[in-house]
């Protein structure tokens, strides 16, 4: 099928075996997820020019689960998230040390094409960003079309499937030709999620996906994240502690670019091992 090469690019080997259960973490506490790892971040440091944004982070992110990254502003949450699909490289003068192993291969290895990495590891941003000149349908299908998919029946099928998965189909099925930006903020964000999943990535990275939304739209996004986690590995950056508690299976706490603690979310939010985590989540930080 025409789309097969897009969906299953040959440059990265299939998902690692269930036996690959890794307990890891940088020096601080780190949980041992029971699922096979989606990402194995090893001694990762990221620099913007002279500034070290991420320092020696080692972390295993389990597959088909939701991992939240929390921490105060400027702690490196978004940088760490973006490093998982090399999106941070779009910032000039970026340099990394260490490895990010996805599906058995270091995504920073010289032979890896970052475009293919980003196709397999999709991203949703804080502010919804539908293409303003495109209709709802065009927004969803843009990724497939850019990759040369022309089969109209396939595109139609994928459009409905993606919008249904993003819990948006019923609201827009009669308005598919209308501009994407005519939707409400919450709908636009779900449209962006539909766009991200239309190319069938294996991972969804979400950078504060609901921070600009009202509580109802936020609840819909959270419900969607929960449903998506049965098919996708989801990594979400959030400032909202309650959201992290509600949505995620595992939580990583970052401070000043360092991983302070990584554990099951229930553990982090009821009995964290590290004093810095406790102080941060209870609002007693600094």
């Amino acid at each position, binding site marked *: 099928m025409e789309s097969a090469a897009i969906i299953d690019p040959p440059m990265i080997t299939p998902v690692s075996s269930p036996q690959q259960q890794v307990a890891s973490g940088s020096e601080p506490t780190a949980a041992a997820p029971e699922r096979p790892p989606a990402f194995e971040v090893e001694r990762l440091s990221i620099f913007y020019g002279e500034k070290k944004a991420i320092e020696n982070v080692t972390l295993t992110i389990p597959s088909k689960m939701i991992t939240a990254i929390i921490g105060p502003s400027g702690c490196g949450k978004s940088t760490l998230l973006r490093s998982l699909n090399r999106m941070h490289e779009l910032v000039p003068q970026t340099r990394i040390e260490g490895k990010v192993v996805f599906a058995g291969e270091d995504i920073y290895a010289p032979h890896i094409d970052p475009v293919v990495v980003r196709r397999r590891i999709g991203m949703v941003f804080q502010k919804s960003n539908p293409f303003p000149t495109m209709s709802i349908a065009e927004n969803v299908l843009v990724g497939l079309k850019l990759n040369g998919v022309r089969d109209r029946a396939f595109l139609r099928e994928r459009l409905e499937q993606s919008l249904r998965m993003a819990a948006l189909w019923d609201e827009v099925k009669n308005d598919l030709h209308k501009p994407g930006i005519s939707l409400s903020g919450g709908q636009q964000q779900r449209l962006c999620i539909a766009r991200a999943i239309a190319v069938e990535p294996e991972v969804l990275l979400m950078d504060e996906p609901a921070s600009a939304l009202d509580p109802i739209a936020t609840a819909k996004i959270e419900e969607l994240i929960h449903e998506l986690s049965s098919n996708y590995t989801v990594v979400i950056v959030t400032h909202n*502690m*309650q959201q992290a*508690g509600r949505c995620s299976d595992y939580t990583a706490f970052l401070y000043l670019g360092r991983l302070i603690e990584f554990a099951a979310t229930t553990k982090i*939010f*009821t*009995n*964290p091992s590290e004093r810095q*985590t*406790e*102080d941060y*989540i*209870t*609002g*007693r*930080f600094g």
Partner: protein
Amino acid sequence: MVTPKHILGTFDEALASLRNNVLMMAGLTERSLDRAMKGLFQRDDDLCANAIADDEEIDQLEKQIDKDGVDVLMRFQPLASDLRRVVSAMKLSSNLERMADQATNIARRARKLNQHPPLPELELIAPMHAHAMSMFKDSIDAYVREDVQLGRAVVPRDEKLDELNRVASRRLIQRMAEDPDQLRGYLNLMFIARHLERVGDHATNIAEDAVYAAAAEDIRHQPFVASA
């Protein structure tokens, strides 16, 4: 370990208020039990009446703590040790209220006993009283000082109280058969022993909640080695 101040002063105030109400409730419950038992041992109906009157205030405090706890959960969504403190405070208040009910029950039984000549079998109650109150005080101390070790140590002590209750019950049943004229008196003493045994159960619950609040450890319903 000193807890740093919360960024929101109102949150620290709300937590402190919750804790102060629990401590006040514990103080009143201890006083009520003390009055009920003195009313029994000293055959003083006024003390019994005071113990019964204390119950109303304790009931109101339970409602206040529940209301404040729900309010803190709703307004601040506490996490980690803060969350455990709020949950524990609400559970403690429930146990304290039931302890105060035991004090009321003891005071009512004591008033009935005071209408008749004293029974020598009252001596069976004294060690139970001492043991139950010691468990109660230590459980509250464990909560106040967040002393996990002390909290843990309270739990197995309930076995001894249960045993004292069994011994007292056996002896009182025996006396009922030997001296049926005093049957009501012996029955009242049996109920008082039972109420004290329940006080021990609530002290155990409080100690378990104290451990949970301090260390996030659920030590309920675990087999333990009986105390030496």
